[in-house]
């Protein structure tokens, strides 16, 4: 094997176009989960992110209706298209998270949902007759909304992110960041970063999964800035003759897409414009594989105690033995 120089044009680079065409025809899937207490602006943010009415804002329950006892998960799918690229966007909302008086184990329904999606994918992958394209309902990204207290991470934040950081890519954001001044914002972010490191929580983009130097440089810049302080809105106002998305207050207009005002544009670039495929890849190659290893080892060990050691490559060994029988 060796590298070879080409004497003239062959046409290998045309494969990039072929790939582009094929993927555009096939379309993309993206599943994003938003987690946070009610009233933090999750639905508004998602609508601003995808510039359409993706989620309906949950109306505040009147005092007669009870706040739900458990965390429900609501998943809504939409097809959006831009310049010929079709995307099936699924937003999974978690109303009721962190709203109860006793919030212990409020992450359980979420962990269960994420694992269920992995299980669905695994079952389909193990089928004898598989579909041409396995429908991907796995959660690619989980946006966690931190209230802008200005202090530190709360216990519920730490507990949630610790558990979920192991099975899904978490992107923490500071919600309703227009209540913090620039200095307060910087301090808050620094303290959050310290807390995250102290608790051993790994958020996206994870340091271990950087593939090469370029990636690391790019991701380091992002890591210095998380969590992003965002403001969401779907209303437009006139500023300097342009129509911009913004929140109008008596003391000024907060422009959502202005990087001097808030970091919404950074979040959008991260999630949609530059790292969407990477999020999907990390989910598929790392989180899903981890789940698969765990699951297949579990079923090996649960077979009757005739096998003292769990086989590392259970199916292959069995398969070899079978072929020798």
């Amino acid at each position: 094997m060796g590298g070879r120089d080409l004497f003239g044009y062959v046409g290998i680079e045309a494969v990039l176009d072929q790939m582009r065409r094929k993927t555009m025809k096939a379309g993309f899937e993206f599943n994003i989960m938003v987690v946070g207490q009610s009233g933090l602006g999750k639905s508004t943010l998602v609508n601003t992110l995808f510039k359409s009415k993706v989620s309906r804002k949950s109306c505040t329950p009147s005092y007669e209706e009870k706040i739900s006892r458990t965390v429900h998960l609501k998943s809504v799918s939409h097809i959006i298209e831009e310049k010929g690229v079709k995307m099936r966007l699924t937003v999974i909302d978690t109303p009721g998270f962190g709203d109860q008086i006793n919030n212990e184990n409020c992450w359980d329904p979420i962990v269960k949902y994420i694992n269920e999606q992995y299980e669905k994918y695994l079952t389909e992958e193990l089928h004898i007759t598989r579909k041409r394209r396995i429908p991907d309902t796995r959660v690619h990204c989980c946006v966690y909304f931190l209230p802008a207290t200005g202090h530190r991470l709360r216990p519920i934040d730490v507990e949630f992110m610790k558990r979920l950081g192991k099975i899904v890519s978490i992107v923490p954001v500071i919600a309703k960041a227009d209540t913090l001044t620039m200095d307060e914002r910087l301090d808050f972010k620094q303290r959050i970063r310290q807390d995250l490191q102290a608790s051993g929580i790994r958020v996206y983009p994870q340091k271990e999964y950087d593939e090469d130097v370029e990636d690391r440089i790019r991701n380091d810049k992002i890591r210095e800035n998380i969590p992003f302080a965002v403001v969401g809105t779907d209303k437009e106002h006139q500023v300097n003759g342009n129509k911009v998305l913004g929140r109008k207050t008596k003391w000024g207009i907060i422009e959502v897409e202005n990087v001097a005002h808030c970091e919404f544009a950074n979040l959008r670039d991260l999630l949609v414009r530059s790292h969407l495929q990477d999020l999907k890849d990390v989910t598929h190659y790392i989180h899903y594989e981890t789940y698969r290893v765990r699951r297949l080892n579990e079923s090996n060990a649960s077979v009757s105690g005739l096998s003292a050691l769990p086989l590392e490559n259970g199916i292959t060994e069995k398969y070899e033995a079978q072929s020798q029988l």
Partner: protein
Amino acid sequence: MTDTIILYIQNARPLSLSGHVGFDSLPDQLVNKSTSQGFCFNILCIGETGIGKSTLMDTLFNTNFENFESSHFEPRVKLRAQTYDLQESNVRLKLTIVNTVGFGDQMNKQESYQHVVDYIDTQFESYLQEELKIKRSLHNYHDSRIHACLYFIAPSGHSLKSLDLVTMKKLDSKVNIIPVIAKADTISKSELHKFKIKIMSELVSNGVQIYQFPTDDETVSKINTAMNGHLPFAVVGSTEEVKIGNKMVKARQYPWGVVQVENENHCDFVKLREMLICVNMEDLREQTHTRHYELYRRCKLEEMGFRDTDPESKPVSLQETYEAKRQEFLQELQRREEEMRQTFVQRVKEKEAELKEAERELQGKFEQLKRLHMEEKSKLDEKRKSLEDEMSSFSKKKAAAELLQGQAFTANSNLKKDKDRKK
């Protein structure tokens, strides 16, 4: 693939965007990722020795692959695979070319196609093994499955050989077959046209499914449909350059003229390069993975006894089947062990019986000998007794005789004494 999208659309509402979101960069993100990883493409060339496989590969990829001529005396068909790293602008391609060595050279060609089929199956098998592993690394796996198979047809001008038909029939469900007519400069244009028609009709009437260039994508459907009509491509390969006009072109120089490789009037080389590399490389890879590999996987797993639904048509998970099979296997092992133990015990018993029998025999012999010995002994005793009797009677007689003699002597001496006294 279109039907999956339709299904999706049925389950989800379409939504209109009120501004530019930016996910139209998604295909670019995907492409960039693949570029940094590099692409992988594996071609299998099947054809007789000397038909021009290596030359065509050199010409196709514009490089010198350092191949040497093979002998015609190979006892059986072998496959030789070589991997090369090519790079064009920013696209890296890991190209593997597999050549058959000795194909069609043997006297008895009945087994020729089997070696090729086995090679292809081995590649599928190693991919399947990797996919079934618990700790797998599909991301970094070097895919060695054959994506395209170029079948070189000898330019006889008449029809396909029976070896060609048999081989292609065996391979059409395992790999994408693209038949090419090699050394096409030996056939004239009109003969070529008839030859192509004959070949295609023979393939159709024998039910051989060769690779059809895909026509469902509007961007390429026109060119692909046109090319589908030109199959099989009549190619000429050459790495030597000849000056035509004021350019150097790849060509073969004859006393009667120059055959230019890249001239579409002379041969179909440019068409082959277009179709194989520029337009359909990705589709070839996809077909290999989604059609041929899935078929192999399905057959293999069904052979092992795995099913998606059990006899009552309820879905059965692979896990359960696997565990059931494993139980079966362990039980089988136990049964075998038991059997072996039984056989062992049986054998031991038999041996013991044999030994006992031998012992008894020996005992019998011993008794007999002892008896004989006793008899002999008693006989001897008798003899000795009689001898002793004789001896004692003899000594008695001797004593009696001596006594008599003594008596007679004393009588004599008495007589003498008497005589003396008388005097």
